[in-house]
C-alpha cells in the first residue's frame, strides 16, 4: 500500500462524504425545524435524478439537467408538503414513519409508471470527463473533484443561509421554539414549506450528480437514505455542522475500511478468506463507528443533549 494510493482513497472517501452531506443536511434540517422523520427523503433523490435524465435526454445539456433536478425535486417537495406532510407535524413519530414509508412506495411506483423499470441514461459532460493529475502523481477523476467542490460550495451556502439571512434566523428560531415564532407573526406554514423544499432540492441535486456516474433507476434512493440516517445520528439530529462532520466521517470510514481491511487481514489469513471476511467486516464498519460514537456521546457529536 503506497501513500499515493492511500491519499487517492482518502479523496474517494471525502467525495462519498460530500454526497452524503447533500442528503443528510436536508434530512437533518427538516427534522430540526419541523420535528419530522422523513423516510421519503430518498425519493427526492430519485426524483432529482429522473428529472435530470429527462431534461438531459431532451436538451443534451448536463447543466440544464442539474437545474432540472433542483427544480423537479423542489416542486415535488412543495406539492408533497402541502398535500400530505403538513398533516403529520402534530402526529407522533410512528405516524410520520408510516406515512412517509407509504410515500416511498407511492413515489417509486409512480416513477416506474412514468419511466418504466429499466435504468435511464444520464452521463457527465465532456468537460468533466477524464482525469487530472493532483500534486505530482495522483491521477484523479475530474468529475469526482467537481462533486467535492459542489458539496463544499453547498455547505458554505447553507452556512451563510442559516447564519446571515432573515430566512436563516427564522429557521433557527423555528428549531428553538415553534410556538413562539408563530406568536411573533411569522407565517410558520410557509416557513415549513420552504424548508421542506430546500431539503428536497438538495437531495434531488445529489441524485442527479450521483446518477450521472452510477445509474438512474427506481429505488436508487433507499440505500443512500439509510446512510444519511446513520450520518445524522452520528452528527447529532438537527445540526447541519454535525451532518457535515458525520458525512465526511462515514464516507472516509466506509471507503478506507472496505479497501484496507481485507489487505490488513491478508497479513495473517489466507488471501481468499481475507478478501471475503474483510469485505464483510468492512461493510459493517460505519455501524460500528455509529455505535461507538453513541456510547461516548449519546446525542451525537453536535447534538443537544
Amino acid at each position, binding site marked *: 500500500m503506497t501513500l499515493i494510493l492511500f491519499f487517492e482513497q482518502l479523496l474517494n472517501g471525502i467525495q462519498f462524504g460530500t454526497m452524503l452531506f447533500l442528503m443528510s443536511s436536508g434530512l437533518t434540517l427538516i427534522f430540526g425545524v419541523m420535528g419530522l422523520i422523513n423516510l421519503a427523503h430518498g425519493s427526492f433523490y430519485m426524483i432529482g435524478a429522473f428529472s435530470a435524465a429527462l431534461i438531459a435526454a431532451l436538451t443534451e445539456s448536463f447543466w440544464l439537467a442539474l437545474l432540472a433536478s433542483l427544480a423537479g425535486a423542489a416542486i415535488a417537495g412543495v406539492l408533497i408538503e402541502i398535500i400530505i406532510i403538513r398533516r403529520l407535524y402534530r402526529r407522533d413519530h410512528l405516524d410520520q414513519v408510516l406515512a412517509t414509508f407509504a410515500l416511498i412506495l407511492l413515489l417509486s411506483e409512480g416513477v416506474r409508471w412514468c419511466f418504466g423499470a429499466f435504468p435511464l*441514461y444520464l452521463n457527465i459532460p465532456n468537460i468533466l470527463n477524464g482525469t487530472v493529475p493532483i500534486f505530482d502523481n495522483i491521477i484523479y*477523476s475530474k468529475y469526482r473533484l467537481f462533486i467535492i467542490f459542489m458539496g463544499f460550495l453547498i455547505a458554505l451556502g447553507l452556512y451563510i443561509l442559516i447564519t446571515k439571512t432573515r430566512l436563516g434566523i427564522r429557521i433557527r428560531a423555528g428549531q428553538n421554539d415553534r410556538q413562539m415564532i408563530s406568536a411573533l407573526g411569522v407565517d410558520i406554514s410557509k416557513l415549513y414549506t420552504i424548508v421542506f423544499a430546500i431539503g428536497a432540492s438538495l437531495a434531488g441535486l445529489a441524485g442527479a450528480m*450521483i446518477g450521472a*456516474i452510477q445509474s438512474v433507476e427506481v429505488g436508487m434512493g433507499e440505500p443512500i437514505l439509510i446512510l444519511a440516517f446513520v450520518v445524522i445520528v452520528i452528527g447529532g439530529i438537527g445540526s447541519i455542522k454535525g451532518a457535515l462532520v458525520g458525512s465526511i466521517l462515514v464516507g472516509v470510514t466506509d471507503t478506507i475500511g*472496505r*479497501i484496507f481491511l481485507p489487505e490488513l487481514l491478508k497479513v495473517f489469513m489466507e488471501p481468499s478468506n481475507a478478501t471475503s471476511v474483510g469485505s464483510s467486516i468492512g461493510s459493517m464498519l460505519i455501524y460500528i463507528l455509529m455505535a461507538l460514537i453513541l456510547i461516548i456521546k449519546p446525542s451525537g457529536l453536535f447534538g443537544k443533549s
Partner: protein
Amino acid sequence: MRKFTTTLGALLVMAASSTLADGHKVKVGMITTLSGGGSGLGIDVRDGFMLAVKGNKNISVITKDDQRKPDIAVQLADKMIQSDKVDVLTGIIWSNLAMAVVPATVNQGKFYLSPNAGPSKLAGKGCHKNYFNVAWQNDNLHEAAGGYANSAGFKNSFILAPNYPAGKDALTGYKRFFKGKLAGEIYTKLGQKDYAAEIAQIRASGADSVFFFLPGGMGIGFMKQFSQSGIKLPIVGPAFSFDQGILKAVGDAALGVKNTSQWSKDIDNAANKKFVSDFKSEYGRLPSLYASQGYDTGKLLISAMSKAKIKDMDKFRNALRKADFSSTRGKFSFDKNHHPIQDIYVREVIKEGKTLTNKIVSVGLKDHSNAYVSDCKM
C-alpha cells in the same frame, strides 16, 4: 397494483379450480423481482415466460413480486404451495433468494424450474430430482470468460464480484478456467453503486485485464466510472452487465467490450428468430438473455405437458429431463444434475444504428456442462 395482481390471482384460481378435473392443467407460481432495484431482470423473465405460454389454455400463472428480499420470497412460496396449490414454481432471479426458496419447494413435492439463478450448492450436493435449471449453473458464463481471457493472452487479471453466493461462484468460475495470475481480487457490497475505491486499486495493481461480475444497476455504475477513470485495460465479463436492458443506461462506455453469454439475439435458428420478432412486436423492445431464459422455461414446461400429466410426477420429470423443445439457444440438453449442457458464446458490444446491442464473435465453450455433476447424488 398489488390489489390488481391479487384480484387477478383470485380470478385465475377460480378459473383453474372450475376445470380441475382435467389432469392436463398446470398451475405455475412465478416469484420474481418486479419492483425496486433489479426489477428489469424479473420483468424480462416474466415477459419471456408469458410470451412462451401465451394462448395455452392449460397453463395458468400467478405472478408475485419478491422485492429482491429472501424473506418475502419464502412467504410467497409458502402461500403459493399451501393455499394456491401450484404445481410448478419458477421465476427467481437472485441466488440468495433461490437458496431460501428452492430446497423447501422441491421437498414438498413441487417442481422448481429456474429461469435464472443457478447457485453451485443446488447443482452439487444440494441437487434434487424436482429441481431443473433452464438458464445455466452460476459458474458457466464466468468459466467462458476465463477461457476467453486465456485466448486473448491476458496474464494478470484483476477480478471483482459482489459478496453473495453468485458472486463467489463467479470468481470461482473465472479462476477455474483462467491460467494467468491474479493482480487482485475484491468482493464488493451487494447493491454497491460507487466503485471509486475499487478502481483506484485496479489502477495501482498493475493488472493487464479486468474481469467483473456486477449484475443489474451495479454494473452500470462500474462501467461508467471505469471509462471515466481513463484506465485503458481490456474488460471481460459475463453478459449480465451488457444485456439489452442495461446497455442503454451504460452508453458508449460499453462499446467493444467482450462478454460471455449462452444466448444472443443473433444466434441463427428458427426458434430464436421467432422469439426475437415475437418479443419485439409484443413488448416493443429488444429481448435480453433473461427474457430468453424465461421463454425457454415456458417452452420446456409446455413440452413436458404434451408428454405427461403433472400428477404423474415421475413421468412428468422424465419428460422434463428430455428437454424436447426447440430452445432459442439451439442445442440444449440437461446433464445428470438437471443443469444445461449448452454452448457459451463470446459476444461483443456493438452499435446497430443508434441502438447498443451484442453480436457473437466466437463460441467460447462448446457443449459446456458444469463442474458439480459428480457431486450430485440423484
